[in-house]
């Protein structure tokens, strides 16, 4: 069975794009619409990779990423950020939260700013799961 990849994005068109790429490359896609639902699914489904948007209702990808990386049980979950929000902003935001005393988190290993080609997404997923 293919590896499980969870797509957390509020935009159904982006979820459809990502899950299609995943299926075409032999992975098992899962979907969540926001950060809160994403966290629940990460805990229950234990995916091999999470493709995470940043700007979403209920909870942003910035907070979800932070929750994953400060939780000893979840910190090794691999995350690929796929967002319209610039990486520079993501890092500054994490820096600000660290300064507010919320603890240090590492930089995301994989970050793609939207839009993305199917080939680039597929190759980044492959790299992340190696």
């Amino acid at each position, binding site marked *: 069975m293919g590896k499980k990849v969870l797509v957390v994005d*509020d935009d159904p068109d982006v979820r459809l794009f990502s899950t299609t790429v995943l299926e075409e490359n032999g992975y098992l896609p899962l979907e969540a619409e926001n950060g809160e639902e994403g966290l629940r699914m990460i805990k229950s489904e234990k995916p091999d990779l999470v493709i995470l948007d*940043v*700007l*979403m*209702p*209920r*909870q*942003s990808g*910035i*907070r979800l990423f932070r929750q994953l990386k400060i939780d000893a049980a979840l910190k090794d979950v691999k995350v690929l950020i796929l967002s*319209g*929000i*610039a990486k520079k*902003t*993501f890092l*500054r*935001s994490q820096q*600000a*939260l660290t*300064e*507010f005393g919320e603890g240090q988190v590492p930089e995301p290993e994989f970050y793609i700013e939207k839009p993305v080609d199917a080939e680039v997404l597929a190759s980044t997923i492959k790299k992340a799961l190696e």
Partner: protein
Amino acid sequence: MKIKKILFVTKFEELGYDALKALLSLRKSALEHVVFMHVIERDKVAMQRGVGYKKDEAIRLKETANIRFIDWAERLFEQGLEVGVYIQVGSLAAEVAKAVRKEEADLVVIGRSHKTAMEQFYSGSTVIELIRRLSIPVLVYKPVSNNPFVTGTPFQRPLIASDWSPASLSAVDYVLQLKPLIEEVRVIHVADEDAIEGSSVMNAQKTRKEVKARLEEICTRFQSAGIAARSHVYVGRPAQEIEKAAQECQATMVVLGSSSKNRWVERWIGSTPRAIAEQSAFPALLIPPAME
């Protein structure tokens, strides 16, 4: 009752980043999460004979809104705030009510309606429709740049217009918890002209004294909480007098309990909250009856 999460509803032309920036003073109180919302009115993309559902137009409008929100979100994220977004096609009041429930927001911020008097008569005031659907306060934001009387952020010098209704007394409690943002509060009551007309000087003074004493009780609550407060009595038509008071007191916002009149009564005769929300030059914070 703390304002931790605001739902910022914008059509962009009436409510921009400058408004958002002015509201960031709420961080001194409890604000930690801003949710942007843009509703594309259904008739802009609706089914039309020979055209069908204008999907391309819907995508164009959604992406235009998304680009603006990404820009705003980047600025807020970098300040350590949590940010969310909703871009929906539908009816504004219904979509806002849905988002408030999903997000458990504490305050809705919206711009002044651009409907004409005739449009408002037929389809109602969006702001009042929102108040009816929501059990949380609504701030109708007006740009400071359009108002020579307003200087400062909205919560700096609020003016509470009390008619002694439970909703307007809730407004007092609401403003009390915003203490870190407030410089001074003015509390006013607009007495009915009929109560003064035709009565003796002594009776008129008696009315004034009774009203003043009730207002002073409210001021004492603010002063006990460490907030400077003063009271004023006005006589006349409520909406005009509240506007006059806000100018004289150099208020930065008018706070009042929202109307409990039913939809049809309000459509025919109007209400003070509606008049302040739609016509006043000052930002208006409306506290709903459901908070009673």
